[in-house]
């Protein structure tokens, strides 16, 4: 377990964040890659595949985060979020729609209470703005109807070892969220090492994150099985210590059903059943949904489908 050098209670901020985070066990990158590769060979077929595809659909945060986004585009993905396959009512809704703050109102108007609205906030994706701006960004999104906030951490501060700054920002954003759930984006592609991923995961959880999220999708690499595995280990160990279940969101770069199912296997064999719910695991993705739908159609019809049989947003 990852907690042996942690203070006995994790309700309050550890006396020294630096000492606590650096006391976490190291992560061997090659070992993690080996474990992830091993789990990637799991062969998920038939009923289990059907179940996995539907579960994955229900975990999607259908995302559009382009400078070119328009209300029309957002309405389109909202429609799709509520009814991913217009020809098939048995397809579950996705978990949420994820948009920039200025489009939250449009989204909320379209989906009503049917799905969650997640807004990226805090000067997404770089996070390079004053705390005041970040908090305003957050309050603005919540006020517009977002019930989930995807914030970015200050990677520069993290890499510089200024953990207190990162912690304080998360605490402040969390407060600004009110009742909205807070997803903390670690941007693991900029943290570079899995040791940093583990530390950032703990830092975010200690500061009050409801979810820890791999990436903005704007930095490569985004989500990887290795990074997600380390984050899943962190939430597992945090749960052992505190009894609290923190969610994990793998975002960016996940495009195929096969990949998504591999992530579900990672979840299943690292943290177990309890996390196999949209409340605790999400995919941040856009094109993934269509591939899940194509696979679903294939399994239902017995033949391969084609891109003209799913909707383009």
């Amino acid at each position, binding site marked *: 377990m990852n907690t042996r050098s942690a203070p006995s209670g994790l309700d309050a901020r550890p006396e020294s964040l630096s000492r606590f985070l650096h006391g976490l066990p190291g992560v*061997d*990158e*090659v*070992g993690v*890659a080996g474990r992830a590769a091993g789990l990637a060979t799991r062969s998920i077929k038939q009923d289990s595949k059907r179940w996995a595809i539907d579960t994955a659909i229900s975990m999607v945060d259908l995302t559009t985060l382009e400078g070119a986004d328009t209300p029309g585009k957002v309405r389109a993905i909202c429609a799709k979020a509520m009814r991913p396959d217009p020809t098939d009512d048995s397809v579950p809704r996705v978990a949420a729609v994820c948009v920039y703050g200025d489009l939250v109102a449009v989204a909320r108007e379209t989906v009503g209470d049917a799905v969650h609205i997640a807004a990226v906030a805090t000067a997404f994706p770089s996070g390079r703005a004053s705390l005041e701006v970040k908090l305003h960004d957050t309050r603005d999104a919540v006020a517009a109807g977002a019930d989930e906030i995807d914030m970015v951490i200050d990677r520069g501060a993290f890499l510089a070892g200024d953990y207190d700054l990162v912690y304080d920002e998360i605490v402040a954003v969390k407060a600004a969220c009110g009742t909205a759930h807070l997803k903390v984006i670690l941007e693991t592609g900029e943290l*570079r*090492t*899995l040791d940093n991923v583990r530390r950032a995961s703990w830092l975010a959880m200690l500061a009050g994150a409801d979810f820890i999220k791999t990436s903005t999708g704007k930095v490569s690499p985004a989500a990887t099985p290795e990074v997600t595995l380390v984050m899943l280990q962190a939430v597992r160990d945090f749960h052992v210590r505190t009894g609290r279940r923190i969610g994990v969101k793998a975002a960016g770069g996940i495009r195929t059903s096969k990949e998504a199912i591999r992530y579900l296997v990672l979840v299943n064999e690292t943290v177990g059943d309890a996390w196999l719910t949209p409340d605790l695991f999400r995919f941040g993705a856009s094109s993934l949904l269509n591939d899940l739908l194509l696979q679903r159609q294939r399994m239902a019809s017995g033949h391969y489908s084609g891109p003209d049989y799913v909707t383009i947003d």
Partner: protein
Amino acid sequence: MTERIEVRKTWKLYVGGAFVRSESGRTFEVNDATGAFVANAAKASRKDARDAVLAARKGHLAWSAATAYNRGQVLYRVAEMMEGRRAQFVADVRVAEGVDAPSAEQQVDAAIDRMVWYAGWADKLAQVLGTNNPVAGSYFNFTIPAPTGVVAAVAPQHSSLLGLVSVVAPIAVGGNASVVIASAPRPGPAITLTEVLATSDVPAGVVNLLTGDPVEVMPWLAAHADVNALDLTGVDDADLAVALERDAAGTVKRVRRAASTDWEAAPGLGRIRSFLEMKTVWHPMGV
């Protein structure tokens, strides 16, 4: 004028850096090539062999923990001490083997030079015998030689010094300790070599020299569970060699078999290699 009476030396066993009599109290008469009395040598018993193995195990721990550079220096020091006793060795070899002075000198010189040759190998073995292995994966992988441990050896019966040095040195240079049974009929030069070893900074127990009958002592060593390897170079009796090799199987000892060897010829690395284990270490390479 009365002739001065020579002060004779008592020939003892060399165990754990000390000169000891056989615990059995036995001796055997050693004669020169003409059959004249030379000395009573201690006749090692199975308990002497047991004590020698205990000493060797201790010696091995110290010796294998030393740096290769240090082992090389110590073995070179042995050669220095041999050079200082060159005349004594020549006399010993003449008595033991019945050869003329030039022949004995040639053997002694070759023995000293051989010790120097082996000494120089100490800090090169890992480079020459070790490897870096390009495994198909993100791992750093290397193989290095490690000493086998305690080696029981029978020195050549005929080549009383050059043969002895050619057996002892390659065992020692890799970090092993040895229990060596000297030539049974010609132990004289071995006795002098023990005096050299005792004054050469060789840690106690690294080389233990027994005199006596290999037929009596070797089976105990071949079956001893704390002996890791046998060097049967000097076992001339084919039946004994087979029996010892068979006994060695009891604890899967490494065995270097008896073989006629031209001691004058330049040695290869075969003897050193016989008493080294190759250890391979893997470690991941990641950030």
